[in-house]
Structures are given as C-alpha cells and as structure tokens.
C-alpha cells in the first residue's frame, strides 16, 4: 500500500531575479514500511519536495499545482491549522545541519518536551518520560543526564541523534531525512546510517532518505526516485535502477569515484542548469551523451516501462534494446 502518493507536484520560487522552477513535475509513490531514496544534486528539488509535502516551503516559494495524497488524504486541500497537527505527528523531518536545527538557548529536555506538550496536551513529567524513551530509541548515551544539557555540549553526531529523537517523538508514520549525514564524518555517518536502518526495521516506519550519495541509497533503500532540475528522471527498485539506469543515473554512476575500484571517471560535461531559464525539452539534454533533436524539442513523459520502473527519457527503450 502506498502511504504517500505525489502527483504532478509543482513548486516555484518567485524571486526578484525571476521565477525559479524548483519543482516542475514531480510524481512518485512511497510504499508503507519501506525506505525510499530521493536522490539528486543541489538544485534538483529533493529538499523542496520534502518541504512541499510538509507544506513548509519557505518564502518566496509557492506550491502551484499537483496533489499530495497521504493515506488517501490530499494534503494540499487541508487548512493550515489541520496541517499543523499533521506535522510531527504523522510526517516528520530530520534536517541536514543538526547544529542550526536545535535552539541553542534551551536545554534538550525542555526543547523536546515542549513538542510533546503542544501536541498531546500532557503534563511536563509525562512529556519528559516520553522524551527519555525516545532518546533511548535514538541510542543517545545517558538520556536522563542529557535532559538538562544544552545543544553546544554535544558533538555533531550526538546532536543528530537528538534531532532524530525529536523527529520520532510523536511516532510519525512517515519520516523524511534530509541529508542527515552530510555534515558528519564518515565513521559517524556509519553510526547514523545503522541507527536509521535499525529504527526503520524495528518500528516499521516509512523512511524517505534524501541524499546526493548513491552509496547511501544503495546501502539503505529499497526504492529510489532520481531527481534532476525539478523533474523525476526515473523511479523504481534499487536493483532495476542500477541495472537499467536512465542516462542521467548512468552518467552519475560512472562519474563517482568508488572505494572498491580504480577506474577512469567519465565526467558529465557542463553545469547544473539555471532553474529560472531551464533547458527546453528534456532538462538533461544539454549534458546527455545520447541526446538527439527530439530531446531538445519535446519534454519526455514519465512512462511506466514495466516492473514498477518509471522513466522520463525518449531514448531509454531504444538504448536498452541496443545493449
């Protein structure tokens, strides 16, 4: 069953310099109890997608079209007040930078307990109990001792554990993790990845992992959605996508250095497109080695190519056949 169904989502930012088309046409589904990777580079729209689902797109951004179905309910049709009850309780978000996402002026215990009190209208000691329980789940050493401490007293990895606990406080059904390990060291990243994997398995939670690292996706996710310049390039099973990738995914995989082998890196020419004035036709065509005239002229549709593999490419079938 799909817990999240995003259809033709369109979010634009109306800046002084022009309209930034952050999300042009985003459609994907997230199966309940599954880990889905949302992969893309900067400007691909992966963070904006999460913000749109939670309806916390910062100004001057605006969701201007599409549907977001959560358990069958359209989130875009909801009133702001109802939406507020949704956030944290049903859908929750872990941010990239744990340092700036915790308030430096309040002790951890108070900060987290406030969230429980606001949503569930319980007494403070009940709330603190819930906080301690959740901090234990996030494997923070000595949760009782930590309650009175302030964010700056923790290291980056510990802060991220606190942020994970904060996201889990109200037992959400869907958790977005927006590059949760990007600012952390490799060994700490390994701790957090392990933690998230275990949490997902033990709590049966649905996790959407937003990242630019194909390695993390390969390690953690069952399904992947690949984004580029506000468009879905492809979505499907992790194995399928690594086996029969979209030209963009293929190019990306050939361009990343790998720990387990030394090979010639094939770089992708050019730069990430300007979203105010995106390329015509397929957004990837100026950098695609397989591009032909149709790619420049016509926007390819998101097609089901079988085996729940969706692809936006004019030439994918032909290229797969030729292999």
């Amino acid at each position: 069953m799909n817990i999240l169904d995003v259809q033709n989502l369109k979010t634009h930012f109306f800046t002084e310099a022009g309209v930034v088309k952050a999300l042009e046409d985003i459609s994907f589904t997230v199966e309940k109890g599954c880990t889905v990777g949302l992969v893309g580079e900067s400007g691909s729209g992966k963070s904006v997608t999460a913000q749109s689902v939670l309806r916390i797109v910062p100004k001057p951004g605006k969701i201007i079209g599409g549907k977001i179905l959560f358990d069958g309910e359209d989130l875009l049709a909801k009133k702001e007040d109802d939406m507020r009850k949704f956030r944290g309780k049903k859908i929750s978000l872990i941010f990239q930078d744990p340092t700036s996402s915790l308030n430096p002026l309040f002790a951890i215990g108070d900060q987290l307990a406030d969230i429980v009190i606001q949503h569930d209208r319980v007494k403070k000691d009940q709330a603190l109990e819930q906080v301690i329980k959740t901090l234990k789940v996030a494997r923070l050493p000595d949760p009782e001792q930590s309650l009175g401490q302030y964010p700056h007293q923790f290291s980056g990895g510990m802060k991220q554990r606190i942020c994970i606990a904060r996201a889990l406080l109200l037992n959400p059904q869907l958790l977005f993790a927006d590059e949760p390990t990007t600012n952390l060291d490799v060994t700490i990243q390994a701790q957090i990845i392990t933690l998230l994997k275990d949490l997902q398995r033990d709590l049966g939670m649905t996790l959407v992992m937003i990242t630019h690292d194909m390695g993390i996706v390969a390690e953690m996710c069952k399904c992947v959605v690949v984004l580029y310049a506000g468009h879905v390039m492809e979505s499907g099973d992790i194995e399928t996508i690594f086996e029969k990738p979209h030209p963009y995914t293929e190019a990306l995989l050939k361009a990343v250095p790998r720990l387990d082998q030394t090979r010639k890196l094939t770089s992708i020419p050019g730069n990430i497109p300007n979203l105010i004035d995106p390329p015509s036709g397929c957004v990837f065509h100026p950098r695609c080695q397989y591009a032909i005239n149709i790619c420049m002229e016509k926007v390819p549709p998101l097609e089901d190519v079988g085996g729940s593999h969706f692809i936006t490419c004019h030439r994918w079938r032909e290229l797969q056949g030729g292999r």
Partner: protein
Amino acid sequence: MIDMAQPLLEVKDLVKYFPVYSRGILMKKVVGQVHAVDHINFAINECETVGLVGESGCGKTTTGKLILYLERPTSGEVLFQGRDAIKTFSKGSGEEKMRLRRAMQMVFQNPYSSLDPRMTVFDIISEPFKIHKHVSSNEWKERVYKLLELVGLEPYHAERYPHEFSGGQRQRICIARALAVNPTFIIADEPVSSLDVSIRAQILNLIMDLQNKLGMSYLYISHDLSSVRQISQRVMVMYLGEIVESATTEKLFDRPVHPYTRALMSAVPIPDPKRKMNIILLPGEVPSPVNPPSGCRFHPRCQYATSKCSQEKPVLAQVDVDHYVSCHYYHKFI
C-alpha cells in the same frame, strides 16, 4: 640536476600545537594546547600524488598550511628539494621566499570563498604575475588566456566576476590561479568536497590531466576515501594529529592493516546494491585534541585495545614494502 633518490618534499617530525587561552584581566593565559599535528614524517616524490585522509579535526588541513608556512610550525622540518623551507620562509631573503612561493601552491576547499568577490577573473589570475613579476607585463594577457584554456574555461570568462560562476567553474579559476606561477608542488585541500556529484569527476580528471601535462606533484587532502583512491599513488591516514598508516594506494585499499583504517573503509557506502556494507562501528567520537589519549591515540575506540595500548605509544613500523602502520598488534591484522 635533481638527485632521483631525493624526494621533492620531505616532512620531518613536524609539530603544531595551538595554545588554548583563558582571558585574564590584562594578559592572556595559556591553559592548554591543541595537538593539531604531532610529530609526523612523510615524503613526496616528483610527479607523485599523495593522499592525506582523515576525519575533521585530525590535522590534515593544518599539515598543508604548515608546509606552505601559512601557519608557523611549533617544531620540525620541511625540506623542499633538499632545502629547509621553514628557514627560507622565516629568515630567507625576499627573492628566495618568492621563489619558494612560486614552487608550492595550494587549492582550497571552498571555491566560493577562495576568490575575491570584487575582482574579475582576469584580475584574479593575473594577480600572481603582479606579485611575482616573473612574467613581463606585456605577456600577462596571453598567459591568462592560456591558463583559462588549460583549465577548460572560455576566453570571455575573463571579464566576469566570481559570483557569475558555478562551483565547478570557480574551482577551475582557483586552479588556474595556482598554476600561474608554474608550481612544482600543489596542495589540494578537499578541492571537490563542496562541489556537486556530477561536477566532481570533471575537477578530479582535470587535476589528473594537469599532472600528466605539466608533471607536478600533489598532496591531496580529503576526508573522502573514494576520491583519494581515485587520484593518489600513495595514501596516508591521519588520526588525531598522527599518521597511523601509510602505504601505496593498492596496498592500503586492498589490505588495510590499522584498525582505524579498516573501520574508516568499512564505513564508506558503495554505490552498488549487491555489495552491502559490513560496517565496523567505532564507539564514541574522536576525542578532543586538547588532551589526547595516552599511548595509542586510537585505543579508547579500538575493539582490540589492551592495557599496552593505553600506556605505550606505538611507532610507525614497516609491515611490507611501502607499507607502514602504527599499531602494537599489526601482525594480527596482516
């Protein structure tokens, strides 16, 4: 003639301690020391790329800055082409200093903050000529355009300002600026880590191509093991100011010995769904370099640690040709 046996750069017993102050009424008082770099030794040969890898705060960037005398070393020696670089930078004549500055250059991590926002690309790349005057002024223009071409930029880019470029293009400008003085040795401090995934390969390939064309040596500083493997011929692993393992790239990645190196490698996710990770989880976090652990600095996080590890400092021992490890029990892991 340069003696082939003599390495281009030799670092001997290099130490950097940063004092920790507490503010007194009038005078500052030293209350401790950050052991940023603690007695490290290594050498880099001509036309060689050596990777220096480690987590944040391990002292890898400080090492780079010490070699270039952007930080003053507490003690130790840096020999460049057999001559004492620290002495030249601190006491040498203006001409000697400038010659050494031209020989060694650095490419920085953040291409967004390493270009002066008020200067055009032309001004940025020609600044070395103005400082060193090693090229006559009527040749500047031609040289700037040649450098732009060398790093894959267009001539019309010269009149633009840094804010008009993407991260990858800016890093190309930084590389062009470093190349303007014809260096024989370049320190690249995380040159790709702030770039987008699809751009990284461009810059890594550029760095490697330039080595083939111009024949310089690199010290490639990074936390990213995969890119280190891609670019280096030899790799050194640093932990809390010390080098814990050093070997040729193949040996290090195929048969890592030090428990820290092995944990580090196990933690890197591989973009292949068929190869699941087998993470060796390290408990806790990197300890503070102000009061580093006694004995082996890695012992509080090492699963094999014994009482010997907490008391005795291991030395960098040779375990194979071109393979050195600083661990009491290295023979267990070979």
